Every structure is written in C-alpha cells, then in structure tokens.
C-alpha cells in the first residue's frame, strides 16, 4: 500500500520532529510566575489554594490594625517560600508598592481635611496631622496585604487550578466554562494587542511623543482590529465547540452529566478539608467580630493609641 511505503521511506528530507522546542519540565508556568513541578504546594487541592485567595486577599479588608496586616504579609511570604516560588520574581511589584505609598501619603499630607480633634505636629517645616496620617498608614498596609494575598494566588496557580477549584464547588458547568473561555480570550487579546502596537509603530507612530489625549485616542483605535479579529474567530470557536459535542448545559443527550476526567485526577485529602474549614471559620469569625463587635477597628489599635499618647504627651 502506498501509505505504508511512505511511512517506511525515510527520505533524507524528512525532518526530525521539533525536539528542540521541548522545554524543560522542571518548572511550571503559573499565571504570574513559575513554580517547581515538585513544589510541596501541589500536595494541596486546587480548591484549598483557591480558598487562600479568599482568605488572604479579602481578610485584610476587615482588619484596620497595620501590625496585623504586616503579619499577614509576612505569612504570605512564608507560604510562598514554602511553595518554593522564586521570591526575587516579586521584585517587579516593588515600584507599584512604592508608587502607591507616595501617592497615598502625598494626598493625606497635602489634603488632610480638618476635624477639631486632629492632633497636629510639625515635621520638616510641614504641618502634619496624626489622624489622617495614621489612617493612610493603616489603609496602605491593608491594601498591600490584600494585593500580595492576591498575587500569591496567581503566582502559584494556573488557570487550570482555578477551573478545577470552581468545578469542585459544583458550580454549573457553563459558568466555569465561560470563565475558562474568557481567560483564553484574554491571552489571545494580549497577543493581538502586542502585534497591533507593533504594526502602528511600523507606520511611524512614536508612542513616547504622544500626549495623554492622543494616547486615549490611540487606545480607541486598537478596538477596530481587536473587534475584527474577535468577530472572525467567534465563528471558528463556535464551530469548534459544536464539533466536539459541547452543550451549554453540560448534560448528555440522555440527560446524564458530562464526565469530568480532569477533576478526578486531583485527590481531595483530609488536610484539605481541615485547612479549608480552618480558613473559612477564621474568616467568618473575623467578619462577625469586626462587624458585630468592632474588633480591630482603627480606634482600638494599640499602636495608634500608643503613638497618639506619645504625641499628646510630647505636646504638653
């Protein structure tokens, strides 16, 4: 048979398969970084890791005390280094944290507002007020703790982990599916954006010389090619989904649920149960104590009370 002949025929021009493109298996790319494939992190079920996002990312919202938020921040870094995430990769967030600090403190120093109980003190020729300044300090650390609580999740997890987590919760298939399609679209969108920008530069656009208004106009311009590409692709993705028997309901034609092979590959251990339960209980407890009983509110912060006393004592 002709095909068999061809298969046997190792002609000089038949190429090796692209072995050179095989990438080392040891590191696994996550949404924002890389994690070793054998990180102890992977002993935890994706859902457990997902709950850390809720726990570490949202918990600081209910806590005003900067000293606790700084402790949460330290805990996050311990968790990351236990996961063997390359911490030096987090350096890229440093400019952001500094910029935010400058911005927030500048506003609170420049426009402190005024209330009769404000305690003022001079500092390098400026008249500062303690209350707004401390409020900014507390807000800042709260923000940073939340930020890193979120970053830790995206540095250690992939889209797939998030999907497994969502599916474990028995969220309707269409929702988890919509989520995964948007992630996918976002990836293509970024790539398109990069090429479009390059194409604009190839037509003589010098972005560095643009005013803010021109830049806004420029972004509006991107929409045309982006939409064009999206429309042309919608057709194909719809067809691709139908072609592989996809239904919105996630149900089979005989009424059964579609199977979930991927999910069944992740064991859900006792440790996961314990951790999730622990995190959720702590979270609920914190929310109740905070909202119902005013725990960890600004006024009750020992650091604030101490500093205020110092300031008032020094002033007298």
């Amino acid at each position, binding site marked *: 048979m002709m095909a068999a002949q*061809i298969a046997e025929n190792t002609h000089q021009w*038949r190429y090796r398969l692209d072995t050179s493109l095989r990438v080392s298996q040891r590191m696994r790319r996550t949404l924002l970084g890389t994690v070793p494939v054998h990180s102890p992190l992977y002993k935890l079920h994706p859902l457990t890791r997902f709950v850390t996002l809720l726990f570490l990312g949202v918990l600081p919202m209910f806590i005003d005390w900067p000293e606790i938020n700084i402790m949460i921040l330290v805990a996050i870094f311990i968790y990351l280094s236990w996961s063997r995430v390359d911490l030096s990769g987090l350096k890229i967030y440093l400019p952001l944290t500094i910029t935010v600090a400058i911005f927030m403190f500048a506003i609170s120093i420049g426009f402190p507002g005024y209330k009769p109980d404000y305690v003022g003190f001079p500092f390098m020729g400026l008249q500062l007020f303690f209350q707004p300044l401390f409020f900014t300090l507390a807000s800042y650390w709260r923000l940073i703790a939340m930020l890193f609580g979120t970053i830790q999740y995206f540095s250690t997890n992939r889209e797939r982990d998030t999907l497994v987590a969502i599916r474990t919760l028995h969220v309707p298939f269409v929702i988890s599916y919509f989520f995964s399609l948007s992630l996918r679209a976002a990836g293509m969108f970024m790539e398109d954006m990069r090429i479009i920008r390059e194409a604009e530069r190839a037509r003589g656009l010098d972005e560095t010389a643009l005013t803010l208004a021109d830049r806004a106009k420029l972004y509006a311009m991107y929409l045309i090619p982006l939409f064009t590409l999206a429309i042309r692709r919608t057709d194909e993705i719809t067809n691709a989904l139908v072609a592989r028997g996809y239904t919105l309901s996630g149900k*089979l034609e005989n009424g059964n649920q579609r*199977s979930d092979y991927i999910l069944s590959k992740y064991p859900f251990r006792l440790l996961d149960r314990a951790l999730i339960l622990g995190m959720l209980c702590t979270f609920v407890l914190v929310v109740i104590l905070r909202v119902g009983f005013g725990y960890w509110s600004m006024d009750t912060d020992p650091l604030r009370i101490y500093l205020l006393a110092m300031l008032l004592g020094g002033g007298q």
Partner: protein
Amino acid sequence: MKAISCQELSWKYSGRKRFAVENVNLDIEENTFVSIVGPNEHGKTTLVSCIKGLIPANYHGIWYGKVEIFGEDNRNITGQKMASEVGYVFADPESQFTSMTVEEELVFGLENIGLPFQVVHDRLEWVSEITLIKELWDKSPYEISGGQKQRVAIASVLAMKPRIMILDEPTSMLDPIGKDSIFDIMTNVKNETKMTIIVVEHNIEQIAPLSDQILLMYEGQIAKMAPPEEFFNNSDFLVDHGILPPQATAFVDRLKQDGFYDGVLPVDYEGGVKATRQVLQRHTA
C-alpha cells in the same frame, strides 16, 4: 459501505448571490482517504461543513438535497452523536482550543460525550502515542510550536474515535517542519485506523501520495474526482482551475506528452525520480 453520500447538495449563504456548493453528488466509501483541492472561495470548506452538519445548523442560508452519514440523513443526527461520528479539525489550531492545558484540551470532547474515567484515560494514552504529544500534556496549548498545536488539535478530535474525520486545511498555518509532522500523523492515522479521512489541502505535493481519491472543487461543483494517478493527467485543465500538479509529476507528464514516457504518472517524489531515471536510461543508453 458508503460512509458519506451527498445527493444533489446545494447551499447558498444568506446575503450571497451565488451558491457556494451547487448540485453536488458525491459518494465516499468507508476507509478511504479523500483530499479536496481547489482555489479559495470555491466551496471546499462549505462542502465539508455540510458533511459535518455545521451547515445548516450554525449558518443561515438555503439548502437543497441531502447528506447521508452511513445511510442516515445528517440533519437527523443529534449534536453529540455527530461529534462521535464525524470529527472536524480546523485550519487555525489556536482558534479551536477551549482549554488551558493540552491534557484538558484532549479530554474536552470525551467529557462532553460522557465517557467514564478509564476509557478517557486509555484514549488519552492511545491518541498521544499516534500524534506524538505525550510530553506536552502539562503545557498550555498556547506556548507550544505551531506544528505541536495542530497535532494537539488533531489529537483532541481523534480521541473521540469518530468514524469519519475531516481536516480543513490542517497545515496552512504551519512551517515546513510543522507541515511534515502533520502529514506524518495523517499517515499514521490512515495506517492504524479504519477511519474515513477527508482533507482539504493546498499542499498537493504532500497530500497526493496519501490520497485514494483527489477531488477538485471549482465554482461550487466537483470539477474532477479521480485517484491521484489519473487526477494529474491533463495538467492544463488543472492549471486552468487554479491547481499546480507537483513539480515531479508535472515534469514526467511533460515527458509523457513529448513521447518520452508512457507509464502511469507518479504521484510522489520518489515515483518521480524513478520515472525520470527510467526515461533517462532508455534515452541515453
């Protein structure tokens, strides 16, 4: 048994003046490899979309005639049954990906038709072997090479073990190494399964040796359908219809026209070399 039978099939997209496919009668036997060639916008993709049932299901337009898949009118076949009867691979591998890892991509269709864990697992192993992608399971389908992407796309359809497999220009977006790997995979599939395979392809040089039949679509109609050895006779007709025979075949055809050669036209490169040698031996001895 007839795998596919199109009877007086016509389709016009709404808003267009002309029929994209017009009055097509076509029978394809089980376990054959058919390649469809022809210029762009002449009905190749429309024809295979009609066979798969994407037309008329997902498009607006006018439909006449009928398509039977193993004797059953394809408009009566439900979505999930169709998915396991007729597989379809698109030209742009990236646009058909639905998942964030190769493994998920491969099992997506299998999950949709509700296969149990062990079956999915076995299919995954089997398909990865045929398409040489085992080492890619853990990767994102976006960070692998073009050839690998298309292999994953083919594997994800192949895993469903359809009885008919349609590939719509599977190599058009790939570089030569990528193209070669896809032709290798198609050879594997042809040799190791009893699938009926239909490939829309511009690369005549590489698809001809694999084909049992080559079908030329022109202005929505079947302009020629023949086994490759016959298909390349009358190269003027082909060139008029926007098709260039493989160079080795064209060369031997010229020798034939000039009376230097009287055998069967070769359809692959090796055959071309053999025929050329034959002629040279006879005319230079």
